[in-house]
């Protein structure tokens, strides 16, 4: 396993072998182990001691479906803790096919120096001066980079928000159509990339130097079983291609768990205007693409191309969390405005969730009215303009709350919640509070366990069983992110012996034993490593708490608050 180390001080690039302890690792496991080992936990996230690490999942670049997931790790300027931000598109598969398992970007150049890091099909890397690209938004940037490097490349890049080192800055990655519309949004890693003076990572596509699979026949057999299970599941085979993740709007809203107007209500009265059903209908009528293939190796096609009344491209892909953050959370029922906000965030390089919640907090504080979509667009444009208030928005909800001296700020460890209110789905309260990543839904999505009609057995308003359920989900997800498997392709685990089948692929690739027990043990080790980093960074149990609004304000329509005690919360990682 090879890694590329890029020194931004002297522009020296070295290629080295992964140390034996990290062999057989990829994605989140690799980034988190490396950060724990190489980054001082108390360092300034935007200073020279922090490192930005790109790593394809362990199974990325292989023939496994839905395996082009890219882990980007660093100490987060948003949370102050360890961060792995996960993104799809094409770059994970393409980097893995060059034979590179990770790229470590370290140090900091002299002020005003900026670079593009190019990796060719042979896995050779070079730093190119990028002064001409500094200041560009991502769509224009990508168009410019393709003129130089050709169409056949995958790109991870930052926009103005990353350059300004704002805490909600994303790293945007290109999709199969070459658009920078896939976001490693969470944790403000775009700001870390900006602090390194790195405008873009460009990887040539179609390399054939992937690390060899030791037993190709066995791998192929298990990969086929996995794909068959993905295609046999109604959710991944029919529902997601039809409506995308936006299918969640209506059921989560009906359950009263759709945080609305800065989480003052659990239901948005205009949910039907921004639902997946409505979105699919609009896209079809206007001639857009409701079932778009956004990522390499994808057989689900949950992406879409949202177009305007003239059939002109607006954004891709309009997804559930953005429809929530730029819709219900700010009281906005205008799907066209949501699509515009999604595009602007991608173009400026902003996390749609942190930005939407930042706007919601500003509206809640009385700066503008809920539902004022024009004001929301102005606030996002203000970020790109670099105005004082724009920078406050671009730093995320916590900074906005401080600015207005407003304490209704739904963040944990500085990072906003996602589109599931923890008062209505208590399992999500545990995940938000305890994940080393801060408020994060993908770290341990336990919605289905909390809703009886989806087969769940837990009372969503009770603490009972929630800690254990979240713990198990977090242990599983850390491994899914390490392998580089798409969250939605987890239906592939529904195959007979689903987990064992995935483990057989790890064995086939590495040539070393790897059982379902090893899966669990490694998951535990990675989580412990992340928790250890956070502890060294100064985190205490008090950081594993939700904002008081969730404990004190009953959420309509169920009028419940979070009832999980601090003591119970603190047992989450009692492995």
């Amino acid at each position, binding site marked *: 396993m090879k890694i590329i180390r890029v020194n931004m001080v002297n522009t020296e690039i070295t290629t080295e072998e992964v140390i034996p302890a990290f062999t057989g690792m990829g994605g989140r496991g690799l980034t988190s182990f490396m950060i724990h080992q190489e980054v001082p936990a108390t360092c300034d996230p935007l200073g020279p001691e922090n490192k930005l690490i790109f790593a394809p999942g362990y199974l990325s670049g292989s023939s496994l479906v839905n395996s082009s997931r890219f882990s980007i790790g660093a100490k987060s300027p948003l949370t102050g803790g360890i961060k792995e931000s996960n993104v799809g598109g094409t770059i994970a598969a393409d980097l893995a096919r060059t034979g590179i398992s990770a790229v470590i970007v370290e140090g900091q150049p002299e002020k005003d120096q900026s670079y593009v890091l190019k990796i060719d099909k042979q896995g050779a890397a070079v730093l190119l001066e990028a002064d001409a690209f500094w200041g560009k938004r991502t769509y224009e940037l990508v168009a410019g980079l393709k003129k130089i490097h050709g169409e056949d490349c995958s790109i991870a890049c930052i926009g103005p928000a990353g350059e300004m080192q704002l805490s909600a800055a994303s790293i945007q990655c290109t999709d199969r159509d070459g658009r920078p519309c896939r976001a490693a949004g969470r944790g403000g890693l775009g700001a870390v990339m900006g602090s390194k003076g790195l405008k873009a990572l460009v990887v040539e596509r179609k390399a054939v130097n992937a690390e060899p699979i030791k037993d190709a026949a066995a791998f192929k057999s298990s990969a086929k079983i996995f794909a068959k299970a993905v295609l046999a599941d*109604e*959710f*991944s085979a*029919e*529902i997601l291609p*039809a*409506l995308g*993740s936006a*299918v*969640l709007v*209506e*059921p989560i809203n*009906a*359950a009263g768990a759709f945080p609305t107007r800065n989480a003052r209500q659990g239901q948005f009265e205009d949910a*039907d205007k921004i*639902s*997946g*059903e*409505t979105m699919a*209908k609009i896209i079809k009528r206007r001639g857009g693409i409701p079932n778009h293939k956004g990522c390499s190796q994808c057989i689900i096609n949950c992406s879409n191309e949202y177009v305007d009344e003239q059939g002109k491209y607006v954004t891709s892909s309009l997804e*559930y969390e953005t429809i929530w953050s730029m819709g219900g959370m700010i009281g906005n029922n205008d799907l066209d405005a949501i699509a515009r906000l999604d595009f602007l965030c991608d173009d400026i390089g902003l996390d749609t969730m942190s930005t939407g919640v930042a706007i919601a907090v500003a509206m809640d504080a009385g700066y503008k009215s809920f539902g004022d979509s024009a004001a929301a667009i102005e606030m996002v444009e203000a970020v790109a303009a670099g105005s004082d208030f724009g920078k406050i928005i671009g730093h995320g909800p916590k900074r906005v709350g401080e600015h207005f001296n407003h304490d209704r700020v739904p963040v944990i460890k500085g990072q906003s919640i996602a589109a599931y209110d923890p008062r209505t789905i208590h399992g999500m309260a545990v995940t938000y509070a305890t994940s080393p990543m801060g408020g994060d*839904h*993908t770290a341990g*999505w336990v*919605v*289905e366990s909390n*809703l*009886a*009609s*989806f*087969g769940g057995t837990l009372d969503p308003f009770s603490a009972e069983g929630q800690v254990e359920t979240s713990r198990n989900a977090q242990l599983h997800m850390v491994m899914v992110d390490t392998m580089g498997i798409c*969250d*939605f392709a*987890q*239906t592939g685990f529904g195959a007979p012996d689903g987990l064992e089948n995935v483990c057989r692929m790890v064995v086939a690739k590495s040539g070393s034993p790897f059982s379902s027990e090893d899966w669990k043990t490694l998951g535990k080790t990675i989580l412990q490593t992340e928790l250890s980093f956070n502890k060294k960074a100064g985190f205490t149990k008090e950081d594993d708490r939700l904002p008081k609004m969730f404990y004190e304000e009953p959420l309509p*329509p169920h009028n419940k608050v979070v009832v999980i005690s601090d003591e119970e919360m603190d047992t989450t990682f009692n492995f």
Partner: protein
Amino acid sequence: MELNVKLYGTLSRPFDDYDHVTGLGVSIVQGGASIQDLLLHLNINPKGIGMVFMDGGPVKLETLLKGGARIKIFQPIFGG
């Protein structure tokens, strides 16, 4: 009894004129009919169903239908 039924996800596919805003108007003549009977009437396999709401509240397959009720039927979800 008359019911208003909204179908989510891909459940509305078999109904050509289905309108997401207005939903389906459904007449059930059978007395003591349940949600399960409604699904049968609509030719929807209960195994492919997630949450069902009647007049805003979650209900089970065996819950009896109420005349004039607004029913929302969802498919199972998975997320992240």
